[in-house]
């Protein structure tokens, strides 16, 4: 950053830190571009076709949304394992509303879906914040409980695409200057969440809580309120993810979203969120989710049998946390060296 240097050039901590922070996101961008480039070189339709282009940009949307929510929770030193089940309930509820409430406005359904997610997140948050029980256990419990409710309620039924109003279904494929509208909407969400987390005090408080809970307490931050906020946001984003699922796949049953929780954690970790909280950017998470989703769609095109896909994703996850640790250690070491020099 070029601020007027009225001050003599001082310690160079910034270059180290900022560069490395950027290395995470730019590194992901490079990886994504390389992945797309290689895939497109081997199979041009992956990029240079309407369908290829659209799916490239559209398929990551769900993972991006739920990974954002997961990231916020992790940033506060918690974890949310229930988002897959929340997503399922939101998907089906929304489809059910379209089918059973004649002429219900799409906006209202979206609001209800998101509100349902937020409500389920609120239950998680209340249990974690007020009873001081570990979020891992609580959300593991609600992972089962919410899924059970979904299966109990939905049973063998499923959302038929004919239930959905044509305008809603069109949302899935609609494009604006060549970009899927869904991606644009998700990007807006990313921007809002990113803006909130990087540029609003309330968002920074969430980082502060995860970064040093003791200091946060000395500082007068309310741990309960922040924890609650994080879980509600995570639930709401999972609810929104359910609606995006509905608009892309125009279907949904009681099995939707199974296993998404670990994918979301993985995307957050790959995106640079430390599992111990306090650090990681929303942009990194969005890129991490985009990257993981793109691997999933690129590997079959690259001729990698899709059965090996998960192993490769696993390598990327382990690699990403390892890399994170190495960067962290070198950062700390550098900072220490500087500290002792001064």
């Amino acid at each position, binding site marked *: 950053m070029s*601020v007027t240097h009225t001050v003599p050039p001082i*310690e160079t901590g910034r270059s180290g*830190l900022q560069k490395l922070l950027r290395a995470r996101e730019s590194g992901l961008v490079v990886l994504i571009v390389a992945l797309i480039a290689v895939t497109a070189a081997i199979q041009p339709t992956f990029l240079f076709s309407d369908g290829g282009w659209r799916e490239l940009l559209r398929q990551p949307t769900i993972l991006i949304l739920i990974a954002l929510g997961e990231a916020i929770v992790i940033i506060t030193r918690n974890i949310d394992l229930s988002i897959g089940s929340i997503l399922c309930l939101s998907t089906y509820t929304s489809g059910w509303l379209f089918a059973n409430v004649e002429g219900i406005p799409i906006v209202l359904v979206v609001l209800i879906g998101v509100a349902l997610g937020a409500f389920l997140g609120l239950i998680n948050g209340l249990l974690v914040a007020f009873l001081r029980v570990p979020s891992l256990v609580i959300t593991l419990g609600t992972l089962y409980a919410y899924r059970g409710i979904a299966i109990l309620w939905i049973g063998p039924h499923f959302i038929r695409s004919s239930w959905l109003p044509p305008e809603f279904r069109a949302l899935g494929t609609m494009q604006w200057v060549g970009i899927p509208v869904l991606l644009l909407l998700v990007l807006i969400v990313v921007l809002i969440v990113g803006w909130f987390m990087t540029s609003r005090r309330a968002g*920074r408080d969430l980082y502060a809580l995860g*970064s040093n809970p003791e200091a946060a307490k*000395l500082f*007068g931050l309310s741990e309960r309120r922040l924890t609650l906020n994080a879980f509600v946001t995570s639930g709401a984003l999972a609810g929104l993810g359910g609606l995006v699922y509905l608009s892309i796949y125009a279907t949904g049953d009681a099995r939707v979203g199974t296993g998404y929780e670990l994918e979301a954690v993985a995307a957050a970790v790959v995106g640079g969120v430390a599992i111990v909280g306090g*650090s990681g950017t929303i942009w990194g998470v969005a890129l991490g989710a985009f990257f993981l989703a793109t691997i999933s769609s690129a590997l079959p095109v690259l001729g990698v049998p899709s059965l090996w896909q998960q192993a490769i994703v696993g390598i990327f996850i382990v690699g990403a946390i390892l890399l994170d640790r190495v960067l962290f250690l070198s950062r*700390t070491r550098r900072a220490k060296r500087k500290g002792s020099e001064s």
Partner: protein
Amino acid sequence: MTDAPLLQLTGVSKSFGAVAALVRADLTLEAGSIHALVGENGAGKSTLVKIVGGLYQRDGGEFTLEGRSVDFHSTRDAKEAGIAVIYQEPTLFPDFTVAENIFVGRQPYTKLGLLDRARMRRETRELTQRLGVPIDPDREARGLSIADQQVVEIAKSISVGAKVIIMDEPTAALSGVEVDRLMGIARQLRDEGKGLIFISHRFDEVFALCDRITVMRDGTYIATNTTSETTEDTIIRQMVGRSVENLFPKQETTAGAPVLEVDDLTSVGVFENVSFSVRAGEIVCFAGLVGAGRSEIARAVFGVDRYDSGSVRVGGSAVPAKNPAAAMRLGMGFVPEDRRKQGLAMEAGVQSNITLAIRDRLSKFGFITASMEEPSARTWATRLQVKTHALDTEASMLSGGNQQKVVLGKWLATQPKILIVDEPTRGIDVGTKSEVHRLLSELAATGVAVLMISSELPEVLGMADRVLVVREGRITAEIARADATPENVMYAATHAAGDDRETAA
């Protein structure tokens, strides 16, 4: 500005459950002055500060700010009222940049609703510049040196425009240059009309910097002195307030062969060329200021921390580095300074705590049961008179002194040849304190070598056969019991080695 003092506390009290941290505390701070708050460990200084900072609510007493009675319910209230506190524990957010740490909770926004990072950066730069310590605003707080953390905290309090700035032992971990710099900043702030409260155990600083000195003891206000009209002796007498001799039932022993021999131990950046030995039956004390590196040396000797070069021997055999289990087998014991975290499993019972370090020795054919542990636990609990009615009482339910007895018991049970005790009486009431002292004396009398670390001068003087003064990671003086006086120990602790080594008594 009104005639009323900037800040006034009268008869403030505060208890934590059964512990009365503050009984009756008074303090009057005038604008444009620096007020020292001194007292022994546990005198209640930090508690008082936390009440002023809004972290704790007082149980009773008066608290006025510029003449108005105030009642803070959160740290936010205090901040808004213009009170900034730099706590004893570092309170920075390691993942935030220096600039953001300074502005946390009140980050400026741009017109677009983004954080105005440029402005934070600029102001941080100006602030740190003004404090004479240019710290890169964009670096992460993680890994900042204690001194730099201190500067950031001070910058934070200046930038909120605080009228009252409280520093709780800010110099504890600072070196001479850094202390001078900090004192310069403090004077500058005073000249700007702010009121400062300065807590320190170092009298030279207190006398050099402060206008007034308030002394506290056992949670109670003792006296307020004008610096120019008082002496160190007066302050110490007010602080301790009792004759020290009967607290230290030191038995005379004759030192035997060297048990612990430490040779040229160095851990880069922490301590350097540390050599000393402790002989059987001898109590050797590490004296020095907080942060001098005494604990670090001891931890490295025991093997909990790594070291870069040098050697440690017990009874002639080399102790492998980084292996406490091996050190224990050779007969070393270690009572760490933080008994809640390092010395005990707080949620485990007295018995499991006492027998943890001898679990291998108690086992038969590789197995161990509670009934095999019980005799040892009973023996040591009885010998140390631990006040509890059952052996499975959770350690967290004991009082601090009794917790410390359990830690001592745990290590005495290992029947060490050399026992290292780090701050064995920190936070312990005087009665238990003298029991601990008697115990250590008796132990030495049976031929055990004792290496004691203490920040309390009377304890050092009362117990030690030999005093080793540590300053900035080096042993700067060795003073025999007969020669040890508060003056020469303090002098060695605060002045660089070789300045004047043998300031005789």
